[in-house]
């Protein structure tokens, strides 16, 4: 019994007096503030981290970006005026051609034969003309004789040497000779017209024959061959496409929002899809009067200084607008639109304040010109961890994302 009691006493002693209570208090005073600090700074109750900047003064280069396709400034479609089989194609894609050079021939079918026939007809008509002339001579001679005979009988009748009946017979002869002469004259005129007609026919067939030969209207390069010899080409369908590949431009689409400052003559840099590393030089050559109303883009034609490209290729065009010197600017990420109001968030006494500003041009590297509304000391918030609101508690950091 005694030993049991002493055991209990030992145990109690152990429970009560092993350690000093100061240690508990010390531990609590260390861990509780640490935990509170942890909760308020790391979790959802922490202030929103932001980065700030101030106004910078520099020269701003505004430019406009657009995408387009390489096109020839002038392009010619070669097509026949009449339907026919293509008998010969003398050129292929890439060939250089001169003005008037024969490019293709259409099979004339029976045109040559029709030309021969027409020429024969001309010969025949010229013989008919000779015959008509001879007939006229004969009619003239007969008319002369009949007229003279009639005059003589008129005289004889007045002296009553011949009967009235005989005079009438002579008058009839004279009248019929008159009619024969008119007929012979008309025959001759008809024969002359026949000759003219057949000559015109011949001329027409010659012209038609010429049309079977397709020739180049300009000095240029064949950029497309749409058909092959032996194929039938309908009137008006393209056979070949010719373009001046030294005179290329890029039909560029520029968003209407950015197209306000574009002028003919502005410098442009062009990056072709096939050569993304190379920058080519160009100039704005023409701004189309009619914009694309569906895509809300303006069509700007930028001529390419080097004529070294494939037509139809995709190109990215950057057109430099005028530069603004001594412009005060902010990063574009700092400018916000709230209720149609353009402004920035300022960091004031650890809190967010919205402040309206007036902006100018935007550059492509993301700087926006500030016209008015800010002083150089203002701390403008650029990046934030979440959307800002008036009076939100903020904590300034150097950067939000480690670069």
């Amino acid at each position, binding site marked *: *019994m005694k030993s049991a009691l002493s055991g*209990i006493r030992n145990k*109690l002693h152990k*429970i009560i007096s092993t350690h000093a209570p100061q240690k508990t208090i010390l531990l609590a005073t260390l861990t509780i503030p640490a935990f509170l600090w942890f909760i308020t700074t790391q979790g959802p109750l922490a202030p929103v981290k932001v980065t700030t900047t101030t106004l910078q003064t520099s020269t701003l280069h505004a430019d406009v970006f657009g995408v387009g396709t390489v096109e020839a400034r002038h392009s010619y479609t070669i097509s026949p005026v009449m339907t026919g089989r293509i008998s010969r194609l003398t050129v292929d894609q890439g060939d250089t051609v001169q003005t008037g050079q024969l490019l293709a021939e259409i099979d004339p079918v029976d045109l040559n034969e029709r030309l021969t026939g027409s020429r024969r007809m001309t010969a025949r008509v010229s013989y008919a003309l000779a015959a008509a002339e001879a007939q006229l001579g004969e009619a003239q001679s007969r008319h002369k004789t009949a007229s003279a005979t009639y005059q003589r009988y008129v005289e004889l009748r007045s002296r009553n040497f011949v009967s009235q009946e005989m005079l009438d017979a002579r008058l009839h002869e004279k009248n019929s000779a008159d009619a024969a002469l008119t007929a012979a004259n008309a025959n001759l005129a008809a024969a002359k017209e026949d000759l003219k007609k057949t000559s015109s026919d011949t001329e027409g067939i010659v012209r038609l024959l010429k049309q079977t030969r397709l020739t180049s209207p300009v000095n240029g390069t064949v950029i497309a061959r749409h058909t092959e010899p032996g194929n039938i080409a309908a009137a008006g369908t393209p056979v070949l496409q010719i373009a001046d590949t030294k005179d290329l431009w890029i039909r560029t689409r520029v968003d209407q929002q950015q197209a306000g400052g574009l002028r003919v003559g502005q410098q442009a840099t062009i990056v072709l899809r096939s050569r993304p590393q190379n920058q080519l030089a160009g100039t704005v050559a023409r701004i189309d009067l009619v914009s694309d109303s569906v*895509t809300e883009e303006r069509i700007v034609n930028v001529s390419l200084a080097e004529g070294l490209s494939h037509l139809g290729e995709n190109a990215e065009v950057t057109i430099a607008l005028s530069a603004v010197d001594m412009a005060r600017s902010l990063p574009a990420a700092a400018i916000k639109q709230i*209720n149609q109001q353009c402004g920035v968030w300022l960091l004031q006494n650890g809190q967010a304040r919205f402040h309206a500003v007036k902006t100018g041009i935007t550059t*492509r590297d993301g700087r926006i010109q500030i016209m008015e509304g800010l002083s150089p000391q203002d701390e403008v918030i650029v990046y934030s961890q*979440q959307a800002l609101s008036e009076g939100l508690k903020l904590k300034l950091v150097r950067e939000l*994302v480690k*670069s």
Partner: protein
Amino acid sequence: MINLAGRDILHNWGKFVMTGAGLGLLIGVTLTMAGVYRGMVDDAQALIVNSGADLWVVQKDTLGPYAEPSALHDDVARDLLLQPGVMAAGNAAYLTMQIQQGKREVRIMLVGIEAGKPGTPAYLVAGRPITQSHYEALADIKSGFSLGERIRIRRHEYTVTGLTRRMVSSSGDPMIFVPLKDAQEVQFLKDNDALLNERIRTNSAQRTLDASSPSSSQMVNAVLVQLKPGFSDESVANGIRRWKHVQTYTRAQMEEILVARLIATSAKQIFMFLVILSIVSAAIVAFIIYTMTMNKIREIAVLKLVGASNQTISGMILQQALGLGLIGFVVGKTAATFWAPLFPKYVLLIPGDALRGFFLVMLMCALASSFAIRAALRVDPSSAIGG
């Protein structure tokens, strides 16, 4: 008056702290599970909040653009500006797709935006907004892309100019913002083989592909509308629905679609798990406290023997239980805050949940200790000697 509980804890403080830490990890898991559930709902709401829209105008009779496919002509946005109460309207195109980052595949939601119109991200964490009309992109930081990186999306390469945060789809996929025209092209322009095939079918060489032709891509998925101050969203939405023959959702309706329908089952799944996990955690807390007290049954018998009052004994057990709960909560909260950012999807720890968790833990501890107290008070003091 000496504090028996404190003395007892200090007597065997290593074991006590270890038990508390173990308990804490369990509480941490429960808190994280709550965070996963909250994060899931928040992902859906982030989509709504970040779009900055008051109204969503989508194809008639659809739940678009997030829950169902929807297609509208892009000039609808201009018509909408004429409606009373409409301040701004911006076209938006959404497309969930898979893209390559080096050898890694990233699932993203491609969003086509019009610069300066509703739908543009409200804030960036790095870089600059899109200033070029084509081939520039803003990427969400969760997608893993960094500034200046080139992303290949279908036909073109895009340069990442800015990084966003918390811009995710309802399923938590990070968003990549590109200019609307590019997004339309991605969505509606087919690949080369399909185009060639189409050309042969229609037998017209010219018609099908002109990358910049307007006919290929005039559709958008939704028009995001911002209202002028002072107009009620429901009345403007009614006007649009009635006269424009398109479906219009207000913010509350969109939230209903996203939270109550789109993620409903998966959210419920997580929630169910959360409930079970909470019950299991509570049970484990109770068992631990009960067994801890039962282990000390001899000491309690001794205390009784030396004439300690019932109040002293039950106070000791209760204080120990609450202390254990406190350590557990601190460890759990700390652990959850540390490992939450490591999750691939968003885990949202809200202070309300933590507070609720704290009271639940304390309540559980108190409840469990009451069983232990009952057992302790019933102990026969003579067992201290007999044992």
